[in-house]
């Protein structure tokens, strides 16, 4: 869509074409831009801090699951510049656990207390005079861990024999609920046809470029805390933090910086850091500043829950779906932290998406696993749900040999039935899905795309078209999370509903306007949108309006819903601000009415003036009217409050509590999105090329098309990431594998396809003041499944998982791999544990080799980089080794043991190494076989790596580990070669050391 720009300052061109006093709906240029473009933005790390402020660095767990046996901070605390080292025990002693939305014995303090449960979990905090020194001190904290078995897969975690993360809970399924809306079982029993598919949705996030940042100060005098952070809300977490800190709510002062570098939901989850840094400040006796770095963010900030969904559909021969059954296993990582598991419940009311499906059952398993805890991520439960529903619709179309779009059309909620109450409770306010689809099909060029597919297929290409429709909820009902409680529990704990928005609009004596509202934007342009709304109401120029959204919880109006999430802005903040501006306008009109000698509702506002509607000559300048309100309260109409300041709090009545039958209207407004795309898969490489992508949105009234399309483009890019590139990868042992931006892959401009955006229909919401709905999340829902559907179409394949990595796709499209002509192919090593096998020929008979293995000297000679080795038990040794590849080296403490001894035939060699680069534990089975007068050692090994090297080493760690194993045997062989030369009939045994994964000869 093309819009004409509207300038935000008079000094720039373009003002002449401006329609008089009508900013809303125009492409007004962002008032946020000028300082940001000049490098004058004020992000939290740009703000000055008090002299003496300390800098925090956080020690993090290298283990996915381990008991903390001891933490020794004595060396660290004595380093220069270090003021305090705070452990989980300290925090636990001074805080209460952070609560979640239901009663659970799980204890979460934001820092590990006696057990670590994911790689990256905070273990200790160093506060030092600068960040460099703080990081130095981390190296000197000694933590003794006892590793525990880890579980990362949600289905495995639900099994009865899974390692339990929270013994107090007793199960990894921390919440389970069954919801039955309508008569689903009956519908299934009566249905002619049924389909079932299983969906696996991965873990990802939208990793803002600015990470978390907190400056916390303990106030000795009041016992409270002053905090500045880029926390984004919801402020329902403010009481959670205050309670954890054991202080009254009003003693926790939180302020937002002027700028925040993106969030996409992520910065919600920084609230536990606020708590632990408050404690750190209290113990250190100084303000403490913490800037999260990228490694910390990727490993330990937050992620959207990964999910497994088994979805079943009941339908007839025409493809009319009568019922759905959804079983979700929603994986929240190591701890549930508020407001989790909100995403699954935010979407609950919309379990039937845009369809008129009457019956739906939903079974929710909420699980914990040894991964980073989850949090909000743009889309908030939608991508997972709609991936299942929309894949199902395509599957049904495939079963019936129907065009998927035809199937979608047959099932859509009929136009004219809005507001429509979905079976699980969503009250979908407005829309015309059929018309939007029709216009998108023609406007977006679907017919031409279908021809393109035909042509491509005729040429033998793998070409597919995908579709997706999504209902896009905005402005969350603060009561929806209670849906996870039973009706009885809800009654007991008290009803929850609504969502309060707050705004204040003031006019000063010179007639210029200030706006304060309870949004915490991270770049969405809310200042611009609010200035547009207010300027229109008050007849001022946009530059007469200053919007300050740096919420200070001690001074500004806020309630629990405050913040910036779930597309709250357009429906809620804009409504509250609009209402406040209208009230101010009414007041000004009343004041002006007597001077203009007209009734108040005949007073018009434009061009910084108020005038009589019928007589433009009869006018007053706005600043005169404003001045009167400030300077002469006595002259104001009877009963009118002096001065000009209107504060509004607003909550929509449609946001009702969860019904006794568990129906919940989770959101206030519901937009609609429809996407289609054409993709081609390269047969040679498995790479996907997005040939065309069309996205069409109905978000009600568009406040500013520049801002709206910016949200669509941004969401689309994040969704392309989720579809093709981004994934937080974990090994089966819980090791974290995508710890850098070289491994967690964010799409760049070079990867982004062209996006066609359409807004063919605008169905204003009857429930919001301006008719506006959210727009920022739609593509998060639609794009991954639209692309997956296109890939399914191209390949004629059902099971499609994202991210769509070329290696995976190539396996889908290629048959068996060409066999090797020489050696029988061995299965390549899988997963994170590094395993392999090899063989080494050594001089000496098995007995000689055997004794060398069990002997300090033999081991010392074999272990690469062995500096010290001593026997500590019959077959147990302790060693200090320096290991690494090239310049990447580190000192490790090693515990080595030999067991399962079957002299001189086989033994099991176990080693556990820990050092600053991380930890490694390995088991090797050695078998000694006499051969040609020498001895052949067959070895199999499995190694688990965790910590820094595994996190950031990406593609190189496995190779490094294998190399070190091979080196061990090389050295062992070499040492024996010197012991016993007699058996060296093998020419150049060194060259014959073979390993499957090392250099094969």
């Amino acid at each position, binding site marked *: 869509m093309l819009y004409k720009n509207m300038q935000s300052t008079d000094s720039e061109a373009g003002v002449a074409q401006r329609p008089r006093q009508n900013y809303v709906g125009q492409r007004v240029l962002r008032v946020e831009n000028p300082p940001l473009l000049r490098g004058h933005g004020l992000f939290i790390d740009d703000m000055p801090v008090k002299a003496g402020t300390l800098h925090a660095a956080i020690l993090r767990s290298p283990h996915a699951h381990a008991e903390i046996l001891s933490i020794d901070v004595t060396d660290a605390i004595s380093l220069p510049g270090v003021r305090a080292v705070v452990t989980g025990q300290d925090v636990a002693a001074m805080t209460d656990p952070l609560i979640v939305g239901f009663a659970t014995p799980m204890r979460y303090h934001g820092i590990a207390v006696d057990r670590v449960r994911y790689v990256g979990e905070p273990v200790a905090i160093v506060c030092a005079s600068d960040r460099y020194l703080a990081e130095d001190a981390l190296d000197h904290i000694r933590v003794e861990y006892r590793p525990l078995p880890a579980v990362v897969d949600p289905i495995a975690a639900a099994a009865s024999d899974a390692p339990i993360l929270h013994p107090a809970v007793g199960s990894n399924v921390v919440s389970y609920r069954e919801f039955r809306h309508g008569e689903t079982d009956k519908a299934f029993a009566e249905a002619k046809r049924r389909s079932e598919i299983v969906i696996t949705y991965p873990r990802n996030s939208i990793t803002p470029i600015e990470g978390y940042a907190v400056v916390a100060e303990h106030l000795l005098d009041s016992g409270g805390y002053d905090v500045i952070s880029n926390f984004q809300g919801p402020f329902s977490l403010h009481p959670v933090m205050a309670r954890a800190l054991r202080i009254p709510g009003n003693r926790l002062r939180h302020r937002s910086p002027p700028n925040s570098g993106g969030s996409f939901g992520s910065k919600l989850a920084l609230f536990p850091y606020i708590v632990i840094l408050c404690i750190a400040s209290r113990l250190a006796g100084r303000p403490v500043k913490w800037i999260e770095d990228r490694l910390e963010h990727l490993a330990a900030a937050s992620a959207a829950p990964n999910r497994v969904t088994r979805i079943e559909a009941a339908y007839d021969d025409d493809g009319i779906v009568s019922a759905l059954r959804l079983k979700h296993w929603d994986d929240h990582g190591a701890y549930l932290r508020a407001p989790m598991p909100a995403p699954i419940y935010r979407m609950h009311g919309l379990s039937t998406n845009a369809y008129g499906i009457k019956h739906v059952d939903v079974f929710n398993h909420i699980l914990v696993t040894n991964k980073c805890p989850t949090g909000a991520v743009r889309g908030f439960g939608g991508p997972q749900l709609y991936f299942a529903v929309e894949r199902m619709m395509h599957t049904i179309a495939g079963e019936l040999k129907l065009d998927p779009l035809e199937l979608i059309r047959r099932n859509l909620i009929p136009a004219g039935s809005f507001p429509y109450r979905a079976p699980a409770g969503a009250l979908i306010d407005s829309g015309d899905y059929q018309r939007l689809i029709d216009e998108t099909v023609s406007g977006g060029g679907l017919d031409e795309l279908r021809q393109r597919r035909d042509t491509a297929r005729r040429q033998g290409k793998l070409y597919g078209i995908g579709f997706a429709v999504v209902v896009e909820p905005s402005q969350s009902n603060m009561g929806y999370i209670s849906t996870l409680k039973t009706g009885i529990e809800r009654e007991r704990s008290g009803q929850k509903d609504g969502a309060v928005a707050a705004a204040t609009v003031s006019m000063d004596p010179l007639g210029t306007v200030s706006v304060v509202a309870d949004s915490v934007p991270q770049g969405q342009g809310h200042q611009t949108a609010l200035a547009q709304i207010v300027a229109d109401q008050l007849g001022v120029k946009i530059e007469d309006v200053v919007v300050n959204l740096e919420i200070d919880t001690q001074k500004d109006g806020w309630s629990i819903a405050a913040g910036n999430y779930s597309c709250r802005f357009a429906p809620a903040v804009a409504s509250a601000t609009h209402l406040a501006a209208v009230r101010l306008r009414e007041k000004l009109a009343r004041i002006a009415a007597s001077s203009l000698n007209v009734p108040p509702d005949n007073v018009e506002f434009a061009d910084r003036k108020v005038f009589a509607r019928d007589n433009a000559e009869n006018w007053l300048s706005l600043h005169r009217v404003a001045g009167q309100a400030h300077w002469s309260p006595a002259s104001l109409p009877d009963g009118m409050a002096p001065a000009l300041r209107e504060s509004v709090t607003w909550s929509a009545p449609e946001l009702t509590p969860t019904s006794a039958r568990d129906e919940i209207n989770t959101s206030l407004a519901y937009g609609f999105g429809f996407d289609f795309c054409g993709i081609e898969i390269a047969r040679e490489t498995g790479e996907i090329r997005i040939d065309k992508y069309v996205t069409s949105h109905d978000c009600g009234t568009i406040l500013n098309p520049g801002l709206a399309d910016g949200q669509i483009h941004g969401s689309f890019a994040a969704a392309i990431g989720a579809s093709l590139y981004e994934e937080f990868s974990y090994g089966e042992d819980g090791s974290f594998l995508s710890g850098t931006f070289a491994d967690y892959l964010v*799409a760049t401009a*070079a990867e982004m396809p062209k996006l066609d955006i359409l807004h063919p229909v605008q169905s204003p919401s009857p429930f919001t003041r301006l008719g506006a709905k959210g727009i920022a999340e739609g593509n998060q829902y639609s794009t991954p499944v639209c692309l997956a559907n296109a890939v399914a179409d191209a390949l004629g394949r059902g099971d499609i998982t994202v991210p769509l990595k070329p*290696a995976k796709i190539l396996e889908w499209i290629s048959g068996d791999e060409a066999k*090797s002509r020489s050696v029988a192919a061995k299965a390549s090593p899988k997963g994170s544990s590094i395993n392999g096998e090899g063989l080494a020929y050594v001089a000496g008979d098995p007995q000689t080799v055997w004794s060398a293995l069990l002997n300090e000297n033999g081991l010392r000679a074999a272990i690469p980089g062995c500096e010290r080795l001593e026997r500590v038990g019959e077959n147990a040794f302790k060693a200090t080794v320096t290991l690494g590849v090239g310049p*990447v080296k580190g000192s490790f403490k090693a515990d080595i043991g030999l067991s399962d001894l079957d002299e001189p035939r086989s033994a099991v060699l176990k080693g556990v190494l820990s050092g600053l680069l991380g930890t490694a534990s390995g088991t090797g089975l050695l078998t000694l076989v006499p051969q040609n007068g020498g001895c052949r050692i067959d070895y199999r090994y499995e190694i688990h790596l965790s910590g820094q090297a595994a996190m950031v080493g990406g593609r190189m760690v496995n190779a490094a580990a294998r*190399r070190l194993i091979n080196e061990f045997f090389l050295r062992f062989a070499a040492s024996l070669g010197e012991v016993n030369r007699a058996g060296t009939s093998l020419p150049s045994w060194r060259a014959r050391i073979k390993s499957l994964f090392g250099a094969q000869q």
Partner: protein
Amino acid sequence: MKPANFDYARCERVESALDLLAEHGDDARIIAGGQSLMAMLNMRLVRPSIVVDIASLDELAYVKEAAGYVEFGATVTQAAAEAWPALRKRVPLVAAALPHIGHFQTRNRGTICGSLCHADPSSELPLCLATLGGDVVLRSRRKKRVVGALDFQIGLLSTAKQPDEMMVAARYPAARSGWGYAFREISRRHGDFAIVALAAVVGDGKIRLGVGGVDDKPAVHEWDDMDDDSLADALNDFAWDLGGGDDIHATARYRREMVRRLGKKVIGEARQCRS
């Protein structure tokens, strides 16, 4: 993510760098472009006691044509090499490979020799040097020596360079008339390290294929020129020999497939562009 402590020396002469290397040995780290080293320092994967900065050694900022090869001094950046007018003609393989290395901002500082010394198994420049059979020139206070590419890079991030040595230059054999050169790589995003990188040289009745990103270091195989069927078998054998492993970006099988499929392509391209 801040480096551990180290001393720092900015060298104005090669000799001063060599002195420091002789004095500190393995505890010293040269910094050239810093495009690999700095990230490792920031992550504390390397903790040298002294960082020896050679970036301002102008005497090594030269590209020189010599008999049969082109020599890049140690401080020639990848961007400077790209801008060298004769590059495409004299070392077409390097010209084709350079744009794949990171981004223009990283090439503005990253050096040719730094990439060779870093010895990343996926890197383009070591692959080109190995495939072309080039040399590197190492100097220490003790001596100067010339080492062949295959002897130089001995494994993952590991080279035959002794702690007191620095690389002063790299010699890439110049294009021969009648020979063809081609380069290809597959990576997840633009500028990423290659999942598989392939360099092909065809001439004199031989085919030479270098593969990066699969084994611990570039692997090079040479065959007599052959027909397509035999080539497919040869590439299949080569792919299996290389092994390779799974990582989060690609599987071992994918890497083998790329050796087979793109190997054929890149050899075809090299045949085509024989001049």
